[in-house]
C-alpha cells in the first residue's frame, strides 16, 4: 500500500515534469529548424576553407621538421592556398545570411 502510494507520487512528479514544456507557452530557446540549402553550402565552404588552412599549417610544420622536401612543399602549399582562396571567394560571393 505504501509502495503503491510512493510509486504514484513518483509517477505524478515525472508526468508533471515531462508534460510541463508541452503546456507552457512556446519558447525559442531550442534550435530546431533544419539548415537551409544556402546555410549548408556555406557551412561546407567554411569547412573546406578551414581544412585548407589547417593543412597549410601542418605542411609548414612538416617542412620545418624535414618530413617533406622543398619541391613538394612548394607545390602542395600552392595547391592548398588556391583551395582556401577559392573557398573564401565563393563565401564572399554568397550574401549571408540570405536564404539559399
Amino acid at each position, binding site marked *: 500500500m505504501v509502495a503503491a502510494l510512493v510509486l504514484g507520487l513518483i509517477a505524478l512528479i515525472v508526468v508533471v515534469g515531462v508534460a*510541463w*514544456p*508541452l503546456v507552457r507557452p*512556446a519558447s525559442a530557446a531550442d534550435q530546431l*529548424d533544419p539548415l537551409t540549402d544556402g546555410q549548408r553550402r556555406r*557551412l561546407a565552404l567554411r*569547412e573546406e576553407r578551414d581544412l585548407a588552412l589547417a593543412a597549410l599549417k601542418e605542411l609548414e610544420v612538416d617542412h620545418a621538421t624535414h618530413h617533406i622536401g622543398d619541391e*613538394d612543399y612548394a607545390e602542395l602549399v600552392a595547391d592548398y592556398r588556391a583551395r582556401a582562396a577559392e573557398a573564401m571567394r565563393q563565401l564572399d560571393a554568397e550574401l549571408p545570411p540570405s536564404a539559399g
Partner: protein
Amino acid sequence: MALIGQGALILALLLAIYAAAGGLFAGLGLDRRFLASARNALWGILALVVIADAIFLYAIFTHDFSFTVVADTTSRSLPVGYMFTAWWGSQAGSLLLWVTILAAFSLLALRATRRALGELQPWLIMILALIGAFFLLLLVVPASPFVTQLAPTDGVGLNPSLQNPYMAIHPPALYLGYVGLAIPFALAMAALLAGRTDSRWLVASRRWTLAAWGFLGIGMLLGSHWAYTEVGWGGFWAWDPVENAALMPWLVATAFLHSVMVQERKGMLKVWNLCLIAGAFALSIFGTFLTRSGILSSIHAFVSTNIGWYFVFALAAVLGGAFGLSLWRLPLLKADQRIESLVSREATFLFNNLLLVGLAFAVLWGVIFPLLTEAVGSVRETVSTPFYEFFVVTFGLPLLLLMGVGPLIAWRRASLTQLRRSFLWPLTAGLVAGAVMIAFGLGSSWPGVAAGSVCAFVTVTILSEFVRGAAARRSIHGENWLVALLRLIGRNRRRYGGYIVHLGVILFVIGAVGSSAYETQAEGLLEPGQSLQVGSNVLTFQAIEKTRGANFTERAAVLAVTSDGKSLGTLRPAKRSYIREQTTSNEVAIRTTLTGGDLFIILDGIRGDGAVQIKAFYKPVVGLLWLAGFFFVGGVLLCVWPDEREARRILQRYTEEPLPGES
C-alpha cells in the same frame, strides 16, 4: 521496496519510449516543445534509475535476502567493501549499472552538443532513448533485479574471484567503455537522420570514442593485472570469450580513431567511418551479451536463455539501422578527395585500419567458431590460444611497423629522398637492436627478436618526432628546448598524446613478448627443507602457515628466497578456502625485481604429509605491461583534454552566420 524498484524501472521504460517518440516528433519539426519534453523525460529516466540503484544497493547492504539476486550473490559474512562489487556480480545488477551509465552519458552528450549541433538534438534523444528502452526492457522482463522470494537465512555468497579490489574497478571501467560507445553511434545516426554530414558531429564523436576507448583499454589492463596476480595460472590474457568481448570493440574503435583523422583532413572514408562506429557499438552490445549469457557453451544454451533473442534483435536493429540510414544518405557521403599516393600518411592509416579490422574479425571468428561449427555440423569445435596468437603475430607485427612508418610519412605524398633521410636512424636502431638481442643470446625466439627490433625502430621514430618538432620550434620561435617541447605538446595535443599512447603500446609489446618468450619455469614437490631453483633464484620450503580471515581460512607455504647466496626474504603462496562459498582460491606470491621482472610462485597443492607442490616462473620485463598502462592513460588524457583553440575555431565556423533558431 522491491515493488517500488520494479515500478521505477517500468516507469523509466515508459519514459524512454515516450522520449524516443518525442524526439521523433521534434525531429520531424512537428513541435519544438516536444524536444524540451523529451529531454525532461531523459532526466526522469536518470532519476528513476538512480532510485532503483539505491533500492538495490540498500537491499545488498541490509542483507535483504528476499531479493533473489541479493541472496544469489551475497552473504552475511561478505566484507562490506565487496558489497559494491556484488552490484555487478549478477546479470541484473550489471544491466542496471549499464542503464545508469547510459542515462548519465546521454544527458552529458546532449549538453555537450547543445550549441553547435542543436539541430541534431531531437534525433540524438530518439536514438539514445531507444537504446535505453532496450536495456530497460531487459531489466523489466527477463532480468529484473527486483524478483523476490521467501528470504533464506543466508545468501550463497559472492564468487571468490570477484572478492578482490580489482573487481571493484575493472567491471565499471569496462562498462564505461561499452556504454560510451553508444554515444558516437547515436551521434552518427543523428547526423544521418538530420542530413548533417559536415565534420562537426565527427569531432564530437571522436572525443567520446576516445574516452570510451580509454576506459575499455584501462578495463582490459586492470582485468589482465587481476588475472595475473589473482587468478594465478601465470599468464595475463587467456583469450577467454569474455576477454575477447572487450578486445573486439576496442580494436574497431582504435581503427576509427585513426581513420577519423583522414576524414577530418581530407573528407574521405565517410562511409567506412560510419561502418566502424556502428561496428564498434554492435560489438559492445555483443560483448555485454557475451558476458551475460551462456551463449558460447552451446547453441542449445542460447535457445534456452530467453535473454539471447533480445540481444539478437538489438544487434540486428543496430546494424540494420546503420546500414539503412547510410544507404539513404549515400549521396551526402561522397568522398571529397582521393588518396594520391601509396607513400602517404592517409595510405598508412588505411592499411592500419585494414589490419585492425582484420584482427578484430579473426578474434570474432574465434569467439563464434563453436556456434558456427555446431550450426553447420553436428559436432561443436573450438579454437584455442594458438589460433589467436597466430593472428596477433601475423597482423600485429605489420601494425607495429606501421606505427613507426606513419609519423615519418607526410600527408598526400612523400618523396624518396625525404624518406631515406627520415628512415635512416630508426632503421639503424631497429637493426642494431636485433643484432644486440642475438649477441646477448636472446635469439632463441624469433618473434622475440622481430618484436624487439621493430619496437626499437618505432621508439626511435617517435622520439625523433619529439626532437624534430622541438627543434623546429626552437629555430622558428627561438624558445629553449624545454619550452619548445612543452609548447609543441601543448599545441598539438592529439598528435603527441597519440605518440605517448604508441610508446605505451611499445612497452606493452616488450613486456608481453619478453615475459613469455624468455620466461624460465620450474616445478617440484617439496618437503620441508627442500628447495627448487628457477633462474638464479633458489626457493627453500620452510613450513606451512595457517591463518583465518573474515570469511576464509588460508594455508600458505613459507618459502625462503635466495639469489646467488643472498637472502631476499620469504614468499608465501597460499590456498584460501572460502567457508560459505565452499570454494578454494589460489593466492600467488609475486616478487618484483628492480628490472621489472617477476618471480611468480603458485602453490599447486598440499599433500597430506605436509609436502607442497610448487610451480615457479621467472618472467623478465613483465612489469612493463603495467608501466604501459600509465603511458596509455597519460596519452589518452592529453588527447581528450579540451583544446580551446580548436573549440573556438569550430564554434566560429558554425556561428559566423546565425544558425536556425538564432535567426
